[in-house]
């Protein structure tokens, strides 16, 4: 009773997916076989019928178990630098999964086992051949034959698609200069178009537009600090940055220890705050009054 039910369900699904791809068919066939095996085992164990959901669950578990064995065995084999698992791999896997291998032969030869008919042969799916271009290279003699084949030549062979660049120094410089000038001109013109401008000629505002001079609030910053562009090139050429960085960390550390100590609790802090600051400057042994922590007001000193 159970089987037909299972069957009908599966056949129904099979019919509904009659037009599926061969690889899907293959999967379905395999699963069906597995289901049969599970049902046989159930019968063997004395079940008369089973709910569909239960059978499905058990099938799923079985499949997972077998998958795991396969995966593990493969892993063991690859671990020992082989490509095909051997019996020992499978055995180790089983042991690893907590299965008593010794009981396996006995179980296989048990008397009441049911024989399942071989599943109908279905063709394993054929992976569609990728578009191959050109002749694949054969392995050179020092590479064993079991190694994978070379990929298609187009994946590794350079195929120039442009003209040889002009490497003439003069032309390059010329180009770079022109390009830069064009960029600059376009950029400044754009800025001038979109912002306020000043002009040198009253009658003609467009020929020589000047971006209007805007006073800034802190003019020395932009005038003294190197621009980002310059900084970039500096980093590329300069390696003396490291010292500076450690320095700034020190300074920052000291600042940090200064300030929090200010905000935290009052009475206990002085010793507490001294420790980190002295620690951070220990290597330099800097005793500078400006780095010392700020003292708390004495209570007595109020008026």
């Amino acid at each position, binding site marked *: 009773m159970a089987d037909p039910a299972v069957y009908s369900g599966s056949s129904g699904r099979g019919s509904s997916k009659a037009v599926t791809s061969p690889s899907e068919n293959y999967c379905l066939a395999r699963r069906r076989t597995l289901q049969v095996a599970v049902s046989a085992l159930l019968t063997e164990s004395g079940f008369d019928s089973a709910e569909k959901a239960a059978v499905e669950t058990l099938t799923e578990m079985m499949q997972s178990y077998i998958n795991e064995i396969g995966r593990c065995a493969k892993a063991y084999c690859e671990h020992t630098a082989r490509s095909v698992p051997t019996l020992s791999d499978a055995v180790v896997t089983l042991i690893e999964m907590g299965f008593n291998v010794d009981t396996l032969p006995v179980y296989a030869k048990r008397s009441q086992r049911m024989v399942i008919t071989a599943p109908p042969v279905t063709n394993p799916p054929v992976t569609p051949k990728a578009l191959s271009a050109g002749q694949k290279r054969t392995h050179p003699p020092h590479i064993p034959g079991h190694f994978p084949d070379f990929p298609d030549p187009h994946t590794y062979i350079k195929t120039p698609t442009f003209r040889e660049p002009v490497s003439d120094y003069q032309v390059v410089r010329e180009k770079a200069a022109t390009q830069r*000038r064009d960029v600059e001109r376009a950029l400044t013109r754009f800025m001038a178009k979109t912002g306020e401008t000043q002009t040198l000629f009253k009658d003609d505002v467009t020929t020589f537009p000047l971006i209007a001079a805007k006073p800034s609030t802190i003019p020395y910053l932009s005038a*003294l600090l190197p621009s980002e562009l310059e900084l970039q090139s500096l980093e590329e050429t300069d390696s003396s940055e490291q010292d500076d960085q450690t320095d700034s960390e020190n300074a920052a550390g000291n600042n940090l220890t200064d300030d929090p100590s200010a905000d935290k609790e009052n009475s206990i802090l002085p010793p507490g705050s001294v420790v980190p600051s002295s620690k951070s400057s220990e290597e330099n042994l800097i005793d500078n*009054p400006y780095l010392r922590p700020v003292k708390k007001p004495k209570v007595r000193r109020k008026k």
Partner: protein
Amino acid sequence: MVLNSFLCLAVVCINNINFQRKSVIGYVELTIFPTVVNLNRIKLNSKQCRIYRVRVNDLEAPFIYNDPTLEVCHHESKQRNLNYFSSAYTAAVSAVDPDAGHGELVIKVPSELWKQGDELKVLKVYIEFSLDQPKGGLHFVVPDVEGSMAERAAHVFSFGYQNSTRFWFPCVDSYSELCTWKLEFTVDASMVAVSCGDLVETIYTHDMRKKTFHYVLPIPTAAPNISLAVGPFEILVDPYMHEVTHFCLPQLLPLLKHSMSYLHEIFEFYEEILTCRYPYACFKTVFVDEAYVEVSSYASMSIFSTNLLHSAMIIDQTPLTRRCLAQALAQQFFGCFISRMSWADEWVLKGISGYIYGLYLKKTFGVNDYRHWIKEELDKIIEYELKMGGVLLHPTFGGGKEKDNPTPHLHFSIKHPHTLSWEYFKMFQCKAHLVMRLIENRISMEFMLQVFNKLLSLASTASSQKYQSHMWSQMLLSTHAFLKSISNVSGKDIGPLIKQWVDQSSVVKFFGSFAFNRKRNVLELEIRQDYTSSGTQKYVGPIKVTVQELDGSFNHTLQIEENSLKHDIPCHSKSRRNKKKKIPLMNGEEVDMDLSAMDADSPLLWIRIDPDMSILRKVEFEQADFMWQYQLRYERDVVAQVEAIVALEKFPTPASRLALTDILEQDQCFYKVRMQACFCLAKIANSMMSTWQGPPAMKSLFTRMFCCKSCPNIVKTNNFINFQSYFLQKTMPVAMALLRDVQNLCPKDVLNFILDLIKYNDNRKNKFSDNYYRAELIEALTNSLTPAMNISNEARTVVSLNPDVRLILEEITRFLNMEKLLPSFRNTITVNCLKAIRQLQRNGHIPSDPSLFKSYAEYGHFVDVRVAALDALIDYTRVEQSPTELQWLLDMVQNDPVHYVRHRILGMLCKNPPFTRTSDSILCNEALVDQLWKLMNSGTSHDWRQRCDAVNLYYTLFGLTRPSCLPLPELGLVLNLKEKKAVLNPTIKPEVSGATLIDTPASIGIHGVGMCYQVDEEPDPVSLGVCGVGQPPQGLKRKAETPLGSPPEPGQVLQPQDDDARGGGGGGGGGGRFKIRFNTMEEEDIDMETVHDSQAFIHQHLHLLERPSTPGKEPPSVEQPMLSLPATPAPVFSKETTSASSKHGSDHGHHHHHHHHEHKKKKKKHKHKHKHKHKHESKDKDKDRDNSHTYSNSPASGRSIRSPSLSD
């Protein structure tokens, strides 16, 4: 103060600094030891401070606050001549001069303490004060952005020219009054207060929102050496010297780190040569925005301009910043630690600090750079002295003579640092260090350093003593002590040297020429001197002459004497024809020379006069062109090379060209010489335009040095690792652009070449920034500009633009616009673009228009940009004679927040004046005269330097006498109806009295006795002529100076013409008065009685004070009744008051600004104040004369008169 008590400790406490309102509140507590019994008045210096209360030993003390420098010439007279102003200003400064024991703030010691004074007990003077929006002394920088004051990088710092500490707290503002200090500053918790001395502790206030910085300065220090800087500074402890701390504004820390990374080397250098440790326990450098000067040194700290900071990519700024640091540090030793005894001794300190700074330069930048620098400084001082008259290092005043002015050629008095023009002061410093170098030449450097060491060790011993020991005066350096120390250490007499260069002003001017006498094998050298023109003096003494002959270089010491001009120098080399022989040079080197150019009969290669620059001189020497060329090529001294380059300008020959080109190519040669050679080559090329062969000068050279081998029209990508060639690469295009072709245009080749340099400039691979290089390329473009065909302003349109100029303009536009997006260091590119645009305008290519410059000159641009824009505007004002722009500039002088910019505007206006006293201009009108007068009279009282700048400008525009554009004073006489007598119109009279003060000849005329030595000093034939005669020739002389000069002498000339109702009698009277004033001293007293104006009265008085006691001539008759009989002055004063008030009535319009400096309370008592002033002056004087029985004139009696005005 100085005379009758000692200051031993000063506590300055500033409780509150409000950045929002720009105000400061604090108190000062001075501990004073009286040295006389019965000290009843204490005079202190204080300007612009509002004083709330004064207590002496916890007793409230009455005080008077009077600052005569607020408004120099009080009553609004029509008087407008500079002579008058200068004398009045000098008198005002003298009246509060702390060195003479005067001050603006007079505190009466409460009578309860007099008894105590008998026992010479300590007095504690406690003064509470506040400052509101200070215009001088302290500068607040508060950027107008969002956020807290710390986030806005708001900061405040003290500044000033010479002793200016009185601007921010009451003190004895003298360099010679030392005391120890306790300084406390309470600032916002996010801020740091940096001040002099050791930071003892930092304590939070109770609300934890502020902290108090406690400083102690145990080393006795003068008040002018105290400073303060408060701001949200980033702190950098010097990694090499932990007692040195650097402070900069937020975000600049990386720059600070780089810029300060070599400070320790400077420290080490000075400590080593002086064999003396840095005298203070710590040192602080603070970098602030809107600095007054680039470097200012105070006790244990220096304040610098933030613009000195730079990153590692900047080449040009690096040496400049190092120099500034070295200068600051040198002044720490001499100037801060060792202070000066009096103003007359300033030259010693400036000299020593400048001299050791020079030694640092020699060590760091090399001997070549040092010698080049000395030569530059020498040229500078010579140029100044020849133009403006002598610079006197050690002025002696008084000395038995009255009104003795050692520098009659100057339009200002050198009696006080505060009356000096800034330029003069710079030249003074320059001369001081040059003279120190001369002393070194005489006594050797070793002795020199020993002297310094001795001075320093004396001072440091003294500094550790207690004040009672009176050892502190060892920390003050005087000329006398310095000279004594020199003679002790070296055993040499440098008297003549000091007399020549220190006690006398002026430089020496030599003219040299020579002839070779073949028969005698003798070089006949003729050295003449010009010692009659202004700024020159006669030199008598040794002079070194170096002759390079074929057989070697020989030094000869000649003696310059009164009448001998010719000197025979025997030559060593018999004849030349030792072919193929190497020629030994001075430094022992032997070189091959091509001798074909030289004169076959003479063995002389070149001759140098005074090669070591051991005389402050200008030498004009004549020798043949080939000799200069040899000198340029083979003399190894950079100074000789520079001299040769200058001389070669006059010899535009192919040989000169070759010599210059060779020098240019030689990388052994000092780079500054090579740079100078570029410009000389350009000039020579222009002179030999028609015969010039080959490509434009320097083009092929530049191509060879800096362009690609494969494509010579393209410059290599920038690599500035070799600084010498970097500087050359920068300079050559600039010099090339000066080349002109036959049409007087810049050759097309050259222009295209420069445009290509700009086009192909590529800095991507460079370790250094190319901003200076690009800026120089813009300057090159500017130099290539020549006047346009069409000059009229309307015709200058885009269409009519010359195609070359169009290219230039395009580059400039692009540069200027790019700068907005990627600003360059110190905006060098904008600066040069502005210059270029002005040059385009001036040459008539684009319309002359000031609006662009005005926008760049606004506050909020980088200071260099502003100065460049202002320079362009000033040029525009001059060329276009535009009154609006001049007014705009003058408004900025009055209102700009940045002191430096105000100073620069005035300075640039002097350099490039819109008109001068000899030219006629529509700009020269009465309103302008009034405005400038007001500016220097009262508008600049907060800044000594700026006031002197204004005086300079006034002098440049109008000269010493009454400006010619002013209407003639209508009336020679004023009838005072109340007094029922005629008085000389004040607009005329004080001018004459001014003349007596300023012009030596006049004073000679008056006091004919004891003047012979003065006559000796004064070689000017005109004044010699004057001295016997007195006044009238004086008038003639001035007339000669000013072509339109009739107005200044109306007193004599005009009155007869002016003759009507009162003229008849009054004119005669006026004339008589002149006579009286100038001939007899006794009559001057009568004059004083009739003076109807209080201010003029003060001046009279002050002048009298200036005269040191010549008892016979002293006019005691007026003062005596005033002092001893308190009843008598009353009517005098009331008379004065009425006359003054009548004056108020008559021209009230001019009067309103009269009061605006004083606060309201004082306003009413204004007139009384003058009275007190007379009282003090006269009393002081009285005291000076006779210290023992002054006390009859007790303060009580004085008080009875002035009691209504006392504000206690």
